[in-house]
């Protein structure tokens, strides 16, 4: 393998691994969950990204084949990393109920909005409606579903 390729692969590996380490360190160092959330979702993503690119280059240079698996892995990571961050944040907000949230223009944040109403309803009337939703006889999608914007 050409030294350039070697250097490139090595550099990518080192960069990737470093970011992985930094991300995990951020998880240790940052003071609260919301801050910590910034660390892994980015640093580790690039960490894996570095390793993946290194791998692609390595196998491209070594075997002359472009390995798509790395691309797929990247695709999945990019698709899912925001999702996990989003959910972790929601879970944290739900359990910690931060008081300093800015309020959106009309309805509240979806973690809380309707939540109060639903909870009240639940305390009065322990069986909120639709069995139809449960059994799927009405195909009405969930409120925020993209199929009925």
């Amino acid at each position, binding site marked *: 393998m050409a030294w350039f390729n070697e250097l490139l692969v090595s550099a990518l590996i080192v960069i990737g691994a470093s970011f992985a380490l930094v991300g995990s360190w951020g998880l240790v160092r940052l003071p609260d969950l919301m801050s910590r959330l910034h660390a892994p979702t980015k640093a580790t993503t690039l960490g894996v990204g570095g390793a993946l690119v290194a791998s692609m280059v390595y196998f491209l240079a070594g075997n002359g084949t472009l390995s798509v698996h790395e691309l797929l892995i990247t695709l999945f990571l990019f698709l899912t990393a925001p999702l996990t961050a989003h959910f972790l944040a929601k879970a*944290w907000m739900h359990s910690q109920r931060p008081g300093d949230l800015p309020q959106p223009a009309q309805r509240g944040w979806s973690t809380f909005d309707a939540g109060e109403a639903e909870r009240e309803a639940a305390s009065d009337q322990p069986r909120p409606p639709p069995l139809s939703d449960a059994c799927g006889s009405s195909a009405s999608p969930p409120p925020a579903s993209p199929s009925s914007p």
Partner: protein
Amino acid sequence: MIEYAIHYAYVAISLGLLFNLWRLFAGPSTTDRVLAVDTMVINVIALIIVYGIQTGSTMYFEAALLLAMFGFVSTVAYCKFILRGNIIE
């Protein structure tokens, strides 16, 4: 050269995993611990990729692929559980 880089990567990622473990212990909230595990999964993916480079084998990619595809499912499920109790409504 690559060999050195790989060894560095092993050490760095392993250290990262240990940091994650610390967060798993320390918490304090459940969300923190879920975050720690989620990060662990990503570090493990990196580890597997580097191992693939070291061994020159593509045999292990599917493991990384599945982790990438489904690692988040558990995390989302945990969060959904914290949010709603019922993860499939």
